[in-house]
């Protein structure tokens, strides 16, 4: 067993040739096999991962992530490795190039172990819209892992591997991280190239790291940021995100939006967040409750902007160039209509239809343009908070993970699950989920830490401080707490 050790220890063992990358890869596949019923993966990369591990044996251990297995969400394309977006329409799709983040993982000599389960095209909040069935929460197999990055959250929480990538359009990294008791970061919009991330809502989408602890999260972020010529919105900024980890928090000014602590949030979660605020205050941080305008409109904005952008982005799945295609079309119109009817699942179809409606004719002015105006006001309102405060905190979710067999008949529920995590995407800010405790049923509770643009390092500072203070055992199987 090596994957329960710290990354620094593993790195030392690799450097001293006491272990080889193949030991880590075999252990990861064994873990995944033992946890098969969690359904965290859509496709495993077994043959190639073993080949890569062997190739690395002759290479110098040149960085801290060298030889370490990583899981990648199945909407991030991987050359030669099936990428489905958890959809029937792409269930035979083998990409012919890598996403930029994947190239970066390969440069660091990390080993991609497989592609993780998710909501179809990242549309959902429980991963139950996956064509391949939902992943199960390692804390209670009858509960959801959240979504849309539910498979990545599951495999990290179960300790199959130490690192995973997710993507976050309206909370899809932070919300499953909260439900499964792991650390998940949605970085600032533009931090990471989106080239090769299958687009859902391009103005909101961002790739981010999902890990068992804060330090590992910052390490993985270090590896994947930077300007990419293939993504116009990516930004040329690099730094060491671990640099403030372990620093004191005295004098740090923290804002708690009143809306985040209102009666939309379950009492147990509120009380856990309040306990955590007390810990912060006792240790020299200054915490104030503030009013932030427009937060209560986040879900409506998200519905309009995300569904509109999705309807446009998903127009490319037409049965002509790649993926599933209806077998016996009469004409080309038939290919489009029936490929999309049979290839997309319920949630995706619903969103594309509403999105198409919202963008059609005069509606674009009535709904979409108006949403963009209010979005700008929401961004300003959030940015204003950072004139006086270093960070914003609050609960990540309104409840803990619910049952896998809870009804899915309310199309609005999946949006409401993300009410607290959406504002961060609207404003392009970085946000992280940190586990802060458990409810009475031993399901994880998470706190969201939001920073100003490009201030991820400060988020990690607070998160690592609390992680150490709270010292929770976050292994669902009760194993030793890994640092």
């Amino acid at each position, binding site marked *: 067993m090596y994957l329960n050790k710290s990354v620094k220890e593993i790195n030392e063992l690799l450097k001293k040739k006491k272990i080889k990358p193949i030991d880590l890869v075999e252990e990861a596949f064994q873990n995944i096999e033992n946890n098969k019923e969690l359904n965290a993966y859509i496709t495993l990369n077994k043959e190639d991962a073993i080949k890569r591990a062997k190739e690395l044996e002759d290479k110098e251990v040149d960085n801290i992530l060298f030889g370490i297995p990583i899981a990648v969400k199945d909407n991030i394309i991987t050359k030669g490795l099936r990428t489905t977006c958890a959809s029937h329409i792409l269930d035979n799709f083998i990409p012919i190039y890598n996403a930029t983040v994947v190239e970066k993982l390969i440069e660091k000599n990390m080993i991609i172990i497989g592609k993780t389960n998710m909501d179809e095209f990242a549309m959902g909040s429980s991963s139950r819209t996956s064509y391949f069935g939902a992943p199960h929460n390692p804390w209670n197999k009858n509960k959801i892992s959240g979504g849309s990055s539910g498979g990545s959250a599951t495999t990290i929480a179960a300790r199959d591997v130490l690192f995973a990538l997710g993507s976050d359009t309206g909370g899809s990294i932070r919300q499953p991280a909260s439900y499964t008791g792991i650390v998940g970061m949605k970085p600032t919009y*533009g931090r990471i190239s989106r080239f090769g991330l299958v687009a859902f809502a391009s103005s909101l989408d961002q790739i981010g790291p999902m890990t068992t602890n804060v330090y590992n999260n910052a390490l993985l972020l270090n590896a994947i940021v930077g300007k990419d010529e293939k993504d116009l919105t990516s930004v040329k900024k690099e730094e060491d995100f671990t640099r403030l980890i372990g620093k004191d928090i005295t004098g740090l000014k923290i804002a708690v939006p009143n809306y985040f602590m209102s009666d939309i949030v379950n009492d147990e979660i509120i009380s856990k967040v309040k306990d955590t605020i007390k810990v912060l205050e006792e240790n020299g941080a200054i915490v104030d409750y503030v009013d932030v305008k427009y937060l209560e409109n986040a879900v*409506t904005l998200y519905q309009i902007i995300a569904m509109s952008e999705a309807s446009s982005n998903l127009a490319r799945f037409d049965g002509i160039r790649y993926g599933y295609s209806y077998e016996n079309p009469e004409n080309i119109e038939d290919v489009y209509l029936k490929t999309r009817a049979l290839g997309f699942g319920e949630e995706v179809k619903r969103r594309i239809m509403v999105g198409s409606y919202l963008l059609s004719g005069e509606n674009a002015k009535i709904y979409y343009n108006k949403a963009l105006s*209010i979005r700008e006001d929401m961004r300003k309102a959030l940015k204003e908070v950072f004139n006086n405060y270093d960070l914003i905190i609050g609960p990540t979710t309104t409840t803990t993970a619910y049952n896998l067999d809870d009804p899915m008949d309310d199309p609005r529920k999946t949006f409401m699950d993300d009410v607290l995590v959406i504002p961060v995407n609207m404003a392009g800010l970085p946000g992280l989920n940190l586990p802060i405790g458990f409810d009475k049923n031993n399901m994880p509770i998470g706190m969201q830490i939001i920073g100003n643009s490009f201030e991820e390092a400060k988020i990690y500072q607070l998160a690592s401080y609390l992680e150490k203070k709270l010292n929770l055992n976050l292994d669902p199987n009760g194993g030793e707490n890994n640092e």
Partner: protein
Amino acid sequence: MKEKLSKEEVLHVADLARISLTEEEISKYQIELKELLNDVEKINEVKGYDDDILIACWENNTELRKDEAGEMLDPKEVVNNAPRHSGNYIEVPVVISEGEGA
């Protein structure tokens, strides 16, 4: 009884989205799409906002890359990904049927 879209309205949005629907789906979406559209209507209750719009959060000036030909994908690989192909071409079914043509 739940609020519903008309059958024609559902067929209209399905047509915009290029998705064919079964009768069963049409009745389901008459209710479900109405629920979502009612939600979306809430945007009209928001008051006091400015007209400035935010399309995406670009805080830095975006730098355009030079317009130069770079590495390209192998056409054979691209075409091989298409469900129907022949040589370096992607095959499609009839686009204009008999009688429809000019």
